[in-house]
């Protein structure tokens, strides 16, 4: 039982990070139809900027804010100088542009920072908390709580503010949104900024547990993309559920089956799900018409 609980909590913790990355994918995908492979780099930036800012003597909360601001700025730049100019290009072209951006950001991070692994101190100490016999790192609660706050804030923003509704309208139908006077370009910029902020928050929360370095973004982007697809691309609820599921799968797979194939379970399950339900778990069943 204690072992089960241990796997459960560590799975949820990692899954929460995947969920945040997947939310970032979903937000940008809905607003602009772009699958942003540089999403993992926002997570990397969140961790790295916080590490270096706090090493320079900035208090941790302030360093975290600086990191989020830096990620948002880069997200906006990415939209303005890489996505905007390529408007109307094919999906594959746009994917390659974001992959190019991810290589570029990694290159910049390697120069501005360095190529070492970095750790942040846990926010509230390293003494494990006993939960029904399972030893849980306090940082796990920070990750889970932080994710919950982000998801809740995003929900309130989308459902209960005018700008949020404009985002939903743009996601539903870009042309119709423009016709009712929504500035879709601003909405897209907002989506890129928001995704960057969410990614950076994930990076800040998880760095005390998993460490960070200039190249952690690639695998995170893959897992986040997988989580988003598992839940059904474009569905925020699906993204969160997909992320948590992916984390649980990994944790239980590693715990009970094989730890060397930890990363394989995620992709194996994705393949199986896609074979059985090609739209993902929560995807809309789209009827195509000629």
């Amino acid at each position: 039982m204690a072992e089960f609980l241990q796997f459960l909590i560590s799975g949820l913790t990692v899954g929460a990070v995947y969920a945040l990355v997947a939310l970032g994918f979903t937000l940008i995908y809905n607003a602009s139809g772009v699958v942003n492979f540089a999403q993992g780099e926002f997570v990397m930036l969140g961790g790295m900027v916080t590490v270096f800012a706090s090493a320079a003597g900035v208090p941790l909360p302030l360093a975290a804010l600086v990191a989020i601001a830096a990620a948002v700025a880069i997200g906006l730049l990415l939209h303005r100088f890489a996505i905007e100019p390529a408007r109307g290009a094919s999906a594959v072209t746009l994917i390659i542009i974001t992959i190019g951006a991810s290589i570029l950001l990694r290159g910049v991070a390697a120069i501005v920072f360095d190529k070492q692994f970095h750790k942040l101190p846990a926010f509230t100490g390293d003494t494990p908390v006993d939960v029904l016999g399972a030893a849980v790192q306090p940082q796990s609660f920070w990750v889970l709580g932080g994710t919950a706050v982000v998801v809740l804030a995003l929900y309130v923003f989308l459902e209960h503010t005018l700008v949020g509704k404009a985002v939903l309208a743009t996601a539903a139908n870009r042309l119709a949104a423009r016709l009712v006077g929504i500035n879709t370009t601003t909405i897209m910029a907002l989506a890129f900024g928001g995704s960057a902020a969410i990614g950076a928050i994930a990076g800040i929360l998880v760095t005390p547990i998993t460490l960070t370095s200039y190249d952690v973004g690639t695998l995170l982007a893959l897992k986040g993309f997988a989580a988003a697809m598992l839940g059904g691309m474009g569905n925020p609820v699906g993204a969160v559920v997909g992320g948590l599921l992916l984390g649980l799968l990994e944790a239980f797979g590693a715990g009970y089956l094989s730890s060397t194939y930890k990363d394989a379970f995620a992709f194996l399950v994705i393949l199986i799900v896609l074979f059985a339900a090609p739209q993902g778990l929560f995807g809309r069943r789209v009827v195509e018409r000629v």
Partner: protein
Amino acid sequence: MRALVNQRFVTLLILAVVIAILPFVFPSSYYFRVASLVWVSALAAIGLNILMGQAGQVSLGHAAFFGIGAYAVAIGPTHLGIPPWAALLIGAVLSGVLAYLVGRPILRLKGHYLAIATLGLGVLVALVITTESRWTGGPDGMPVERLTLFGWRVSGSYTWYWVTGGLLLVGTWIALNLDETPTGRAFRALHDSEIAAQVVGVDVARFKLQAFVIAAIYASLAGSALAFMNGFINPDQAGFLHSVELVTIVVLGGLGSVVGSIVGAAVLVTLPQALTVFQEYEHLLLGLIIIVAMIFMRNGIVPSLSNLLLRRARS
């Protein structure tokens, strides 16, 4: 003008002449190696282009087949005592069979779903290669026995320049011819509109699968060639970033253009070699170049340039 460019024979002739002339201008053996790398990447890209450019299907895990080809010629002779040339054929068959088996369910998917499914396949193959270190040497990779054909030991960058160049010529010839066959026309039909293709009687599922299998075999052969050439192989060759590189070559050069794939390979393989001068800034510049190229030449280098030339010629 266009009719002339489209002539398969002229294209092949130009490629053959380029391959034959380049050695006269190479100042050192290092250039033979870089050129061989270009030929190998171009071969894999031409195959992928049949899938992406002609049949209109994305594969973000194509390096898996490249890796299978590479590891077949490494594992076969070392662990199983299979002659290297036979291992190359076995690798190609394995890649084709795997593509056939997973292609059936995967190719039912569209767009981003197809992208994540192929990506998943690629990641899985790469993971197996990295993890089964008893067979593959794990993350460190493993040495590859030299290729021996009829008692002739194929080695040295000069020799491999001609071998890979020859392979590329054959690969180009097949791809150009395929474009003119009923199969090639069927590919193009389902690229433009799957529904329309179905209406006129094209068996969409079968042709997609064919394109996937052909692309996998191209990649496998290219992987084997690279493994023989380097005498060493590591999991990076099967990894996600290499898959991305292959897709980038195809799109950068121009979807659907065989010549484009060769030009794309030339650009993407030589750039990092040239950029090593800037060492620190290599990745930064590479990312920047990819972004700028895709924004300003979104149809790819070769189609964009030939359009430009056509417009010049007309005015």
